[in-house]
């Protein structure tokens, strides 16, 4: 239904290599979480999947066909910030997703079609727990509510693929847990393919069905831009707690001690 395939994909900015020879095949319905050191190219990777940037070498395919080279409704996205339109209310933000693409000239719906779209929008807001906040502007919403709104907005289009770039990075732990439940529930119900970048290893392990670790394999101290990152670990996650050695290995790879207590307890 929506497979993603990357063949020998490179990304370079001028002489700086960011991503190096990436090969990847992701099946429809996978939940891919991505971790890696800061600046190693995770956001760049997502922007390429989104069509916002193109590969400098190699081929990217969506369902066996070349990836469209501009963003479109088949790939939804939630950024860490600036994901919702500040000039529209919560309801307006979800409604606009329905209006864009259906109406060519005015960009607005009227009459019966508007009422129907409004119904759907309200349902979607309820699905992410924002029915009370329908009339509020994003600046009046908390960070977690804004991200939930962004997810609702992205899901209105029924995208095949949902791209999340540290969507919960700015949220505090309690709200984060709620968001995890929300995203997993939506993933299971809608059969989406999800790519999610995160800095939180625990989140990466618990949420996804497959974990990718991006890292540079080669380093040239004289020229830090000479080599790019690659996928150094590709771990299927079964949602039983992974073996502590896996945590430790990934943690070492990234040069952090991400989850020491859990690893120690079980190890």
């Amino acid at each position, binding site marked *: 239904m929506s497979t993603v395939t990357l063949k020998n994909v490179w990304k370079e900015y001028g002489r700086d290599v960011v991503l190096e020879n990436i090969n990847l095949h992701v099946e429809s319905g996978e939940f891919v979480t991505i971790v890696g050191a800061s600046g190693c190219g995770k956001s760049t990777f997502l922007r390429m999947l*989104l069509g*916002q940037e193109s590969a400098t070498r190699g081929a990217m395919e969506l369902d066996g066909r070349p990836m469209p080279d*501009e*963003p*479109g*409704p088949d*790939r*939804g*996205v939630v*950024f860490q*910030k*600036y*994901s*919702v*339109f*500040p*000039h*529209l209310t919560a309801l307006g933000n979800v409604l*606009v*997703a329905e*209006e*864009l*693409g*259906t*109406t*060519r*000239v*005015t*960009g*607005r719906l009227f009459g019966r079609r508007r009422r129907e779209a409004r119904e759907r929008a309200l349902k979607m807001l309820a699905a992410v727990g924002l029915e009370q906040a329908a009339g509020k*502007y*994003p*600046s*009046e919403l908390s960070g977690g509510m804004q991200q939930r709104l962004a997810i609702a*907005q*992205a899901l*209105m*289009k029924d*995208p095949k693929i949902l791209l999340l770039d540290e969507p919960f990075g700015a949220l505090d732990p309690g709200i984060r847990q709620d968001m995890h439940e929300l995203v997993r529930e939506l993933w299971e119900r809608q059969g989406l393919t999800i790519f999610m970048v995160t800095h939180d290893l625990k989140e990466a392990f618990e949420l996804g069905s497959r974990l990718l670790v991006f890292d540079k394999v080669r380093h040239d101290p004289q020229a830090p831009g000479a080599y790019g990152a690659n996928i150094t670990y590709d771990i299927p996650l079964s949602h039983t707690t992974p073996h502590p050695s896996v945590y430790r290995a990934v943690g070492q790879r990234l040069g952090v001690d991400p989850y020491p207590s859990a690893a120690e307890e079980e190890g």
Partner: protein
Amino acid sequence: MKRLINQTPGAPWRLALGLLPFVLVLLVYLSASATRLAENPDDPLLPSIAAMADTFAEVATEPNRRTGELTLWVDTSVSLIRLGLGVGIAMTIGLVVGVLTGLIPYANRTFSPFVSVLSMIPPLAVLPILFIALGVGEVAKVALIVFGIAPFIMRDIQQRVEELPRELLVKAQTLGANTWQIILRLVLPQVMPRLLDATRLALGSAWLFLIASEAIAATEGLGYRIFLVRRYLDMELILPYVLWITLLAFLADLVLRLIVRVVFPWYRARRS
């Protein structure tokens, strides 16, 4: 003692401090005027408040002996129409060109250098050309205002559009928007309050160009009147006219500010 940058005046002081310069200027004027008038009651340079009020009331309420019109109101309406037309046209051009050059790379490459050069030309230097090409009627005066402020508005709007977070443009595309819908549903609504802000900043220049063109060639208008009576050193009329123009400029600014606050409630919230 806290640093000066960390000291803020309390509520009553704020008002008092704001009024202070006005009161000072008024006092200086009153005393200077009183001194001069004491020496020579016919001194024209610094007329008394009462004399100015009389003259102002006269032009506001008594028909002109020659034309039979109420001078102040004719001058005001004529000037405001010129100003409104000029500013309105400049806003429209500025918005359209600014949005296009800010959003569409081809439009940017085509027009951006041209607009930059255009905005370097001193508008008043162009005034004679406008009078020669368009005649000394209304068109040339409106054209001067447009020429004077449209490039500024264009460049400001272009910059605001370029400053829109990339994420929002991408987001709109993932929701299926085409270029036109992105302009209509994302860029225009976000840029509108900024257009009003830019216009507020441009209003000062707009008044300058209005008064300059009226001073040179007109038969009525606020600027025309001031420069006409200058020949007779008629400070009794000039000073109230200047105050009147200042009041109008202040009100125009206030109206724009109120529109932004009422129509775009999200705008200030996001800024803070």
